[in-house]
């Protein structure tokens, strides 16, 4: 090729490349697409007129479901979905941080004498965001859908006592739940993250992106992978004067430092959780206020009670006695925790069998180990599997190793990747870490400790224990039920295989110019109605 055509080719390539890049970039910036958001960057078209998103309250969650993000309450793989669902729908009942059941779409409820039929009376005059009235047929349809195996909802196993025929409407404003055996805590058990009420007959595909709910906010242009989801106030929300915010934007920030920066610059107003490592920085920042809760997620170390060396109850008790729980809370959680009593029910709960937890007893641990045949020439050696699945849990295992060393116990901490832990490591080794989100006493005592528990973390198979739980489930009187729970808890604390040194407190944040956020101990429950910023 001669010079001139070559230069022409080169210039042509450069120009073509620049044009292509500009076109692509232009399409990226200009694509309003099917998002429902108008061409201007800060205004949003809603059924009730245009809103400026500058006035939206900005809430940042810490978890991402990726493409699984949706508005369907039946499937919530992470709290990102839970935020969408809490904004858009309501449940029959909600719970406070002491697991007391409170009215929401249901105004009152009672059971028959034997506890096999629970009747819920529904609130009148509530409408869905598309104008259709809320009635009992929506409740029946919602519950039947959640327990249907074809839906694949994670809320189904918890409500295995319900059958399709057992959920019936009793007139337009009442619903009956009929069970074969008495279920003393039915109102508590049906208040879970998946039972938000959806409109009867809505196909799943519609529910995922356009579900109509009775809740405080209405989603605008929802799509799973959007970086920011916008919701506007529901003008027909049944609670008068709420929600305070005219619109809400949900962000996702998974990195601790990014969350810190976003809070400090005011790019977000509220945060679902801040990492313990950034707490000291925020405590010094006057523009951000830290909010905390009671005991939430437990940090545990289950041992298999049918496997050496944990088979010997003295070994289990020794491992529990060496732990300085106060030191753990202060060091690992920077004080944002509640010490645990090796009991899945925290000691601050009215259901706990004792409220004062004894301190560490290294000498007691040593004598237990000696009685079990261990000594300085034959020390107890254990492998502890861990991974960074919840904040600070690996630090907990490292501190445990040091504390155990005081009694001559050698702990070998084996840390692996967090993304593989629940699939490949959990339930597969005699001594490892685990974590349980906050649960009421009945559920906390069953989920891992019954002989047929779905997640038998400690291989605990004690018929007397099962009998206690069964008795509690059918005891309608709450004071009597509590006494039974306490007996079961005592068994776990003194003889069980699960070491529970502490519970995390949720640490959330709000800008000082904002008000109204009260975080819940449940990572999937949000009250967004009072959020407001100046």
């Amino acid at each position, binding site marked *: *090729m001669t010079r001139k055509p*070559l230069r022409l*080719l*080169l210039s042509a390539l450069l120009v073509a490349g620049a044009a292509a*890049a500009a076109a*692509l*970039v*232009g*399409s*990226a*910036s*200009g*694509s*309003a*697409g099917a*998002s429902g*958001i*108008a*061409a*201007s*960057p*800060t205004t949003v078209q809603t059924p009730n007129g245009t809103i400026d998103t500058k006035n939206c309250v900005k809430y940042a969650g810490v978890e*991402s479901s*990726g*493409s*699984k993000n*949706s508005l369907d309450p039946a499937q919530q*793989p992470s709290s990102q979905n839970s935020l969408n669902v809490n904004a858009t729908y309501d449940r029959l009942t909600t719970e406070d941080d002491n697991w007391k059941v409170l009215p929401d779409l249901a105004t009152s409820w009672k059971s028959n004498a034997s506890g096999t039929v629970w009747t819920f009376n529904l609130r009148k005059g509530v409408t869905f965001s598309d104008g259709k009235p809320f009635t009992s047929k929506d409740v029946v349809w919602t519950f039947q859908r959640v327990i249907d*195996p*074809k839906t*694949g909802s*994670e809320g*189904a*196993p918890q409500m295995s006592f319900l059958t399709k025929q057992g959920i019936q409407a009793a007139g337009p404003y009442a619903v009956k739940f009929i069970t074969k055996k008495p279920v003393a805590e039915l109102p508590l058990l049906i208040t879970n993250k998946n039972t938000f009420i959806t409109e009867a007959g809505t196909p799943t595909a519609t529910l995922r992106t356009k579900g109509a709910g009775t809740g405080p906010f209405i989603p605008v242009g929802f799509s*799973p*992978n*959007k*970086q*920011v989801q916008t919701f506007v106030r529901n003008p027909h929300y049944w609670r008068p004067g709420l929600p305070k915010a005219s619109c809400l934007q949900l*962000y*996702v*920030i*998974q*990195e601790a*430092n*990014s969350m810190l*920066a*976003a809070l*400090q*610059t005011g*790019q*977000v107003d509220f945060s679902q959780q801040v990492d313990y490592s950034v707490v000291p920085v925020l405590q010094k920042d006057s523009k951000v206020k830290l909010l905390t809760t009671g005991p939430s997620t437990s940090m545990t170390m289950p041992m298999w009670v049918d496997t050496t060396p944990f088979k010997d109850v003295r070994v289990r008790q020794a491992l529990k006695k060496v732990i300085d729980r106060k030191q753990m809370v202060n060091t690992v959680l920077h004080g944002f925790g509640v010490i645990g009593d090796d009991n899945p029910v925290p000691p601050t709960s009215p259901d706990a069998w004792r409220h004062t937890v004894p301190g560490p007893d290294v000498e007691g641990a040593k004598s237990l180990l000696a009685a079990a045949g261990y000594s300085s020439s034959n020390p107890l050696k254990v492998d502890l599997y861990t991974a960074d699945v919840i904040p600070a849990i690996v630090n907990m295992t490292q501190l445990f190793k040091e504390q155990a060393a005081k009694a001559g116990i050698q702990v070998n901490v084996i840390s692996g990747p967090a*993304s*593989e832990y*629940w*699939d*490949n490591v959990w339930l597969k080794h005699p001594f490892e870490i685990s974590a349980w989100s906050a649960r009421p006493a009945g559920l906390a005592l069953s989920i891992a400790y019954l002989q047929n528990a*779905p997640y038998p973390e400690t291989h605990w198979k004690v018929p007397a224990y099962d009998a206690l739980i069964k008795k509690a489930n059918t005891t309608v009187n709450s004071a009597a039920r509590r006494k039974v729970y306490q007996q079961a808890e005592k068994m776990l604390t003194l003889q069980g295989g699960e070491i529970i040194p502490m519970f995390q407190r949720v640490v959330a944040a709000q800008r000082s110019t904002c008000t109204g956020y009260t975080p819940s101990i449940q990572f999937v429950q949000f009250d967004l109605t009072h959020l407001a910023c100046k």
Partner: protein
Amino acid sequence: MILRLIAQRLAAAVATLLVVSALVFFFTSVLPGDIAERVLGHESTAQQRELFRERMHLDRPVYDRYASWVGGVFRGDFGRSLVSDETVTSTIASSARNTLFLSLFAFALYLPVTLVLATLGALFRGKPIDSLISVITLVGLSIPDFVLGTLLIFGFAVKLSLAPALSIVNPGDGFFTRLHETVLPAVTLMVAMAVYAIRMLRDNLIDVLDSEYVRMATLKGVPRWRVVFRHALPNAIGPALNVTALNLTYLIGGVVVVETVFSYPGLGKMLVDSISVRDVPVVEAAALLASGVYILANLAADVLAMLANPRLRTT
């Protein structure tokens, strides 16, 4: 003859892409972990997983699934996401555009910065400005990109409020708003790439400026700027172009880290999410896209090097 070269390379590219797609497909299917369990969560029941497997044709053998996937690709159909059931193209379209925007922005910053700093370093070698550039590039080489990104956030966003801490891009934003929103991640990427290219180009330029024909041109009275730009740079630029092509591969990978630090909704983040969930169709499409970009970038680098330096045109 350059056209013939391009045609040959494109044919090789298609073959490479086929091999890449096969490898990605098979490796993703032998990864530990059951796809159904990943998508439905570990609290799902065996029955739910069976239904899912039937629906997604996961009971067919791997070769069978791969063949039907390749057939689909030639028709322009990349399949549907296993997770969201939306088409793969719609799932990755906006992420891909976002990453493209960020990459082009970073690249647009990278070119002038590299050329200017390398030329300055070479022309004033040994003087303070050269030492300064050398120190800066050395420091830039040693800092990991996520540390750099975090430092930029705290310097420019938190302390100076010059740029947003998170790169939140709204669909309706104008071009200049977008530039403002993505300036910090673009600068992070630019620095990570430029530090290698500056050092390489400076060293090559020094060699070339010492060569005979450059001295000849100077003695002939050719003005300094013409010597540098018309004679020296085109010869020195070859290796720097190769470094640039390598940098483009870094972009494809490093963009994952930067996108996470800045919460930028790009292809890197999407790739990581879909791998951990074993969403094979999305992983495939993203991997193909990344390989395609790499192959094209290498081809472009080779062609440009040849155009700049006629001595490299062997055929």
